[in-house]
């Protein structure tokens, strides 16, 4: 299994010998960067970082919205033996102070030694240095242009390759630390015979953000590790005109592209009939769907709408995975129409078993297949014991893709990785040996393929003038077959008019996370109980809300 174990440095060096590279698409056109050029740019970065005094094992935070800048900085830091960490860039510049508070908390908790960012954002980060004692230096990306000399750091397989901070969590930021071994094993499994069976003719096309596991590992490192071309367009270009994704596949003869369920749905709803003519999706042999629940209806509607453009339903590859497991955990066999099961909603809720219904309401789940080679999946009951087929429990994963841990957070790591088993927080069952994901244990909110921690949303609005400190609860209302509805319950302190406070809460969450809050409920004093556990507080308040017993003011 470890026959082809490679560090990021090795993979980059191998790719640099091929003639492939990245195509970066933007409004202004396209830029091709061969992997050899990427390596040269990475060496410049590596040399500059070392010359600025950074030492092996130091954490370097990258806040870089442009794909080219970000990837070359990530490879540069990693090949220099430093630990790059991706942090999300601000969604807007209008409310930078709260963004910087959030980011400073991450920099502090991770002992970041340096920030690499755009020259526009550099002064703002310079200003947070006084709150971050370990932060030695803030560097603008364009200044990292030292002569390209091959780094002599030679990272070892078990060194941390990079850390991924999904959404910031203020009290205990969760940065997923992955080793070179983690990456190599997972990416090779994705590209291998039990995964996509990547071939010399493959071309990957992606609009996924690079601070997301599926965007970075799946769609940017995946092609690089197999020395195949990767076409990367911006997320904004996709959400503005979803057809641009399909046009890129058409133009580059794209064969591999992954996206969350919502993206397929967006194409069904928004690609206009007059645009279908110019599309040719016949080259698309792996249409991966993951990062959020996969809906059979969405896939069927997509396949029907784009059949005339050459799309085949057998290209769909519904997958399960998470950042704590690099990216991928399970795949079904390729070249198969997605397998779905319709089960009784009542039995699922009352008895926690997934069986066909004899009448009554049903729920449909899509198979995400089987564990990667040398990896294991287990469904665990409340007592931790393995459950038989069709019984619903927490999905546990074991194998060489399980993360090193949450960076500098041993207690949080021990919480989710026990005896080698990663506790995913997702609920599922196994049927005929295949995994069906059917819910969540944790209170994570998933919208458009992105995970949000309720404590981050709560923290973000807790300091608004009209809110009683500590009396804010955020949660997602999960409805089968639909996106989570985001709810915030807050107790007002009477200093802001009601409507203004609701607006301010929505605005703050939108500015910081780009997330729309479906319902802001201002509740009577005493609704949100003060407990030491946010989880207890959330569960109790959510129960009131869902029963309709919440007394609003």
């Amino acid at each position, binding site marked *: 299994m470890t026959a082809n174990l490679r560090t990021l440095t090795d993979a980059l060096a191998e790719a640099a010998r091929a003639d492939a590279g990245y195509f970066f698409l933007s409004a202004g056109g396209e830029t091709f960067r061969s992997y050899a050029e990427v390596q040269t740019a990475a060496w410049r970065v590596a040399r500059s970082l070392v010359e600025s005094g950074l030492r092996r094992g130091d954490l370097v935070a990258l806040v870089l919205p442009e794909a080219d800048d970000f990837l070359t900085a990530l490879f540069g830091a990693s090949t220099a033996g430093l630990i790059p960490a991706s942090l999300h860039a601000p969604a807007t510049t209008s409310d930078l102070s709260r963004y910087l508070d959030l980011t400073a908390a991450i920099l502090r908790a991770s002992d970041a030694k340096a920030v690499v960012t755009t020259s526009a954002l550099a002064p703002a980060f310079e200003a947070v240095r006084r709150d971050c004692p370990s932060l030695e230096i803030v560097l603008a990306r364009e200044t990292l242009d030292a002569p390209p000399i091959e780094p002599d750091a030679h990272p070892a397989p078990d060194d941390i390759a990079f850390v991924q901070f999904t959404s910031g969590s203020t009290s205990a930021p969760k940065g997923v630390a992955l080793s070179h071994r983690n990456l190599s094993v997972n990416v090779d499994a994705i590209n291998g015979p039990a995964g996509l069976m990547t071939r010399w003719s493959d071309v990957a096309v992606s609009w996924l953000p690079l601070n997301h596991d599926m965007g970075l590992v799946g769609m940017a490192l995946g092609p690089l590790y197999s020395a195949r071309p990767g076409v990367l367009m911006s997320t904004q270009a996709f959400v503005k005109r979803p057809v641009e994704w399909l046009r890129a596949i058409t133009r580059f003869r794209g064969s591999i592209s992954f996206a969350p369920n919502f993206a397929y749905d967006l194409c069904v709803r928004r690609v206009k009939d007059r645009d279908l003519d110019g599309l040719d999706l016949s080259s698309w042999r792996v249409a991966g769907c993951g990062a959020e629940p996969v809906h059979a209806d969405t896939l069927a509607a997509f396949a029907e709408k784009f059949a005339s453009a050459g799309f085949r339903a057998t290209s769909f590859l519904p997958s399960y995975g998470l950042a704590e497991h690099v990216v991928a955990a399970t795949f079904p066999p390729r070249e198969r129409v997605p397998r779905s099961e319709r089960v009784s909603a009542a039995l699922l809720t009352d008895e926690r078993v997934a069986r066909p219904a004899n009448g009554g309401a049903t729920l449909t789940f899509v198979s995400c297949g089987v564990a990667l080679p040398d990896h294991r999946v287990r469904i665990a009951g409340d007592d931790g014991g393995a459950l038989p087929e069709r019984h619903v429990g927490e999905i546990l994963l074991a194998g060489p893709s399980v993360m090193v841990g949450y960076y500098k957070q041993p207690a949080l790591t021990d919480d989710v990785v026990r005896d080698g088993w990663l506790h995913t927080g997702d609920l599922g069952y196994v049927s005929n040996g295949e995994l069906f994901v059917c819910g969540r244990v944790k209170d994570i909110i998933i919208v458009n393929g992105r995970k949000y921690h309720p404590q981050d949303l709560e923290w973000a609005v807790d300091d608004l003038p009209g809110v009683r400190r500590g009396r804010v609860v955020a949660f997602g209302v999960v409805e089968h077959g639909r996106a989570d509805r985001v709810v915030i319950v807050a107790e007002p302190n009477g200093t802001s008019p009601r409507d203004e406070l609701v607006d301010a809460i929505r*605005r703050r969450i939108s500015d910081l996370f780009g997330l729309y809050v479906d319902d802001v409920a201002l509740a009577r004093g005493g609704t949100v109980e003060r407990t030491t556990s946010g989880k207890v507080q959330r569960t109790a308040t959510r129960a009131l809300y869902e029963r309709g017993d919440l007394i609003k003011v």
Partner: protein
Amino acid sequence: MPSPASVPIAEGVIDVLKNVSRRPIEPTLASDLVADLGFDSLQVFETIAELEDRFDISIPLNDVPATRTVAQIVDRVARLVEERSNA
């Protein structure tokens, strides 16, 4: 307040907003897209694409974060339409 010349533009913008929203809304010039009309970020981007098609303009994406109210959108669209006809 918009100039008289932008009245048809305001009507067009409001029409686009109604089409993009999947619930019954009655936007006014003072409406805030997120707080009042309940637009999520996907709908904001959909609005941009629809406005570009309807008015035959190109809206730079870096304008987006600063645009919050219907009046601001109308103003921006009116200026882009004017630039196009002057070009």
